[in-house]
């Protein structure tokens, strides 16, 4: 970690300085950092228009892309905070599965029928938050390495989901729930609106609040952060809990999309989320994070998928393209960032 720190000049700025060029507030640097992503997204869109024409450049298709992006997007925003804070979380897909299963058991659905569908939303978010809290406590106070703690959560949350659901798919019968989340006010699906709100909230939290600055400080140099008076352990717990909550929200979104809860939901979501965050420009070792970059990362992945679907190309080719894009985007960003600083 310290080796990597030496290579990045921006990280030698004292962690507690609020004017440090981090997050998205770095002015021209922020733009430069996202430039590679903007170019990649534009190239993808051009390819989409050339190969699929109106089928790509239509409002319906845009909505389709955003709907596909929503679940991954919300989790990735949460992941941005954990990675910026110097951690990693491999359990997001499993937490999503557990939340979706917990919120769709006959017990929860009975409750939803009597007091309203909000009970299902509440229980999904609560379960996600609780899992995140456990992750955070294990990592901050139990001193378990994040990789291991969340790997354990991955296994046990999915296992618990399978136990609760008896490995069956649980169907949502509550009409109020499906009606609310399936609605499209002004042509915009509710889950896309949620995605937008979470992104805005995430951006504000990371760039305009003490919480955000502390996150950058904790990820950049925990020791300096501690000396600056930040309660590093407590803050770490907050970060994982926040991610758990976004997993719960994502579970609600996937529940509305599939009208089911299932222990197979969110398979390999962690890899996509981490990839989206990293190509977005958030440093994997922490200390620098960008919500806007993550948004671009998510959009690049989903647009890529959409262009491939429109052109009947295989998912295997798509996986290769995804790998290439990750490497190219990261290389591009490094070049641009090095030139500017």
């Amino acid at each position, binding site marked *: 970690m310290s080796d990597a720190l030496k290579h990045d000049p921006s990280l030698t700025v004292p962690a507690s300085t609020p004017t440090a060029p981090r997050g998205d507030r770095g002015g021209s640097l922020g733009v430069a950092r996202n430039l590679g992503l903007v170019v990649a997204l534009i190239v993808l869109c051009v390819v989409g228009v050339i190969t699929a024409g109106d*089928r790509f450049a*239509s409002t*319906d*298709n845009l909505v*389709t*892309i955003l*709907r*596909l992006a929503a*679940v*991954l997007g919300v989790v990735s925003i949460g992941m941005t905070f954990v990675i910026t804070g110097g951690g990693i979380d491999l359990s997001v897909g499993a937490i999503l599965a557990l939340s979706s299963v917990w919120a769709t058991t006959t017990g929860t659905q009975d409750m939803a029928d009597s007091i309203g569908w909000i009970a299902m939303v509440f229980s999904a978010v609560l379960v996600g938050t609780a899992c995140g809290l456990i992750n955070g406590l294990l990592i901050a106070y139990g001193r378990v390495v994040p990789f291991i703690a969340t790997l354990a959560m991955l296994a046990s949350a999915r296992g618990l989901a*399978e136990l609760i*659901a008896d*490995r*069956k*798919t649980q*169907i949502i019968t509550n009409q109020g729930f*499906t009606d609310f989340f*399936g609605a499209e006010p002004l042509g915009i699906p509710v889950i896309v609106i949620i995605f937008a709100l979470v992104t805005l909230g995430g951006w504000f939290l990371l760039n305009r609040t003490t919480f955000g600055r502390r996150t950058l400080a904790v990820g950049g140099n925990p020791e300096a952060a501690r000396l600056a008076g930040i309660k590093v352990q407590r803050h770490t717990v907050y970060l994982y809990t926040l991610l758990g909550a976004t997993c719960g929200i994502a579970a609600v979104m*996937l529940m509305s*999309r*599939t*009208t*089911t809860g*299932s*222990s*197979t*939901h969110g*398979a*390999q979501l962690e890899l996509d989320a981490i990839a989206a965050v990293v190509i977005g420009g958030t440093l994997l070792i922490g200390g620098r994070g960008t919500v806007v970059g993550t948004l671009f990362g998510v959009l690049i992945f989903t647009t890529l*998928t*959409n262009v*491939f*679907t*429109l052109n*009947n*190309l*295989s*998912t*295997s080719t*798509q996986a290769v393209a995804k790998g290439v894009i990750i490497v190219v985007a990261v290389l591009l960003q490094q070049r641009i960032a090095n030139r500017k600083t």
Partner: protein
Amino acid sequence: MSTIHHRRRRGLALVGAFAAATLVLGACTNGSGDDDSNSNVSKSNTDNDKTGDKVVIGFSAPAADHGWMGAITKAAKAQAKQYDDVELNVAEGTNDVNLQISQVETFINDKVDAIVLLPFDGAAMTAVARKAMDAGIVVINVDREFNSPFAARSTVLGDNYGMGVSAGTFVCDDAKGAKGKKVAEIAGIDSLPLTQDRSKGFADALKKCGLKVDNRVAAEFTVESGEKAASNLLQAAPKIDYLWNHDDDQGVGVLAAIKNANRDEFVMIGGAGSANVMRDIKADNTVLKATVIYPSTQAADGIKLARLIVQGKSMSDLAEIEVPRQIKLAAPVVTKDNVDTYIKSAFES
């Protein structure tokens, strides 16, 4: 001296070029061999085959992570190619319901005439299939059933319960009323209703002759999971008389585990009906003595039905004017005696 060097170098370059060419060729042939080489679909030789209005069909299925699923897509593509009036849009296979939903949404945006859908999870795809139906698109549900009758115009199903019954009946016949035979079962993905149906059919058929499943493990339809599940099972059961394995693709792993454990005291029955397994049955030199067919041409049937419905045709061998709402395919047992009939329709795993 230098010319010798030169020649040697040129020789090396030639060898290198040759190796590279072989690699590239190999990669290409692997890819193209995927298409429709040995597919076993045919037209029906009726008036229905006459070229009619153009039909655009969207097709989506789970990832082809094992032979049967690969054969499904291959047969669907081959079937579509048989007709000049069918244009097939194939969305590549995925096990991510979120992505599969998005594929169907793309088909709806494209205003296709019909969608043939083999869902990764029937329940999870119901809402979006319903949306397609509401948009006036003919949806044909294949293999894994939706949970709403409004979500599909017609459904093509394999007989999973029937597969279990076929396998169980074969065991009963072979045991000839002997009691106390040890029966083991290696199931597929337990969370899928189709696996539960197969197991139920097997148990019900065994009950008829006083037998029961003594050991049961679940694998995940893949070779790796089959090997793992089988080696655990063989550890747990020192003596077995009959073993039913739900799926011939995971069966490759199961057979490997059996070989590693040096076991041959039992009769093994397969499931799905891969060409490998049928060749083994024909050769009659392994524990495999039978398999139960689960047709890999279901999606091809789906394509044919979609075309008929969109063109307003009926099924020529039925008196009905409309194509039926549901078609359930048979699950016959293949043994050494009848293997020649079925090996033509078997899929390569």
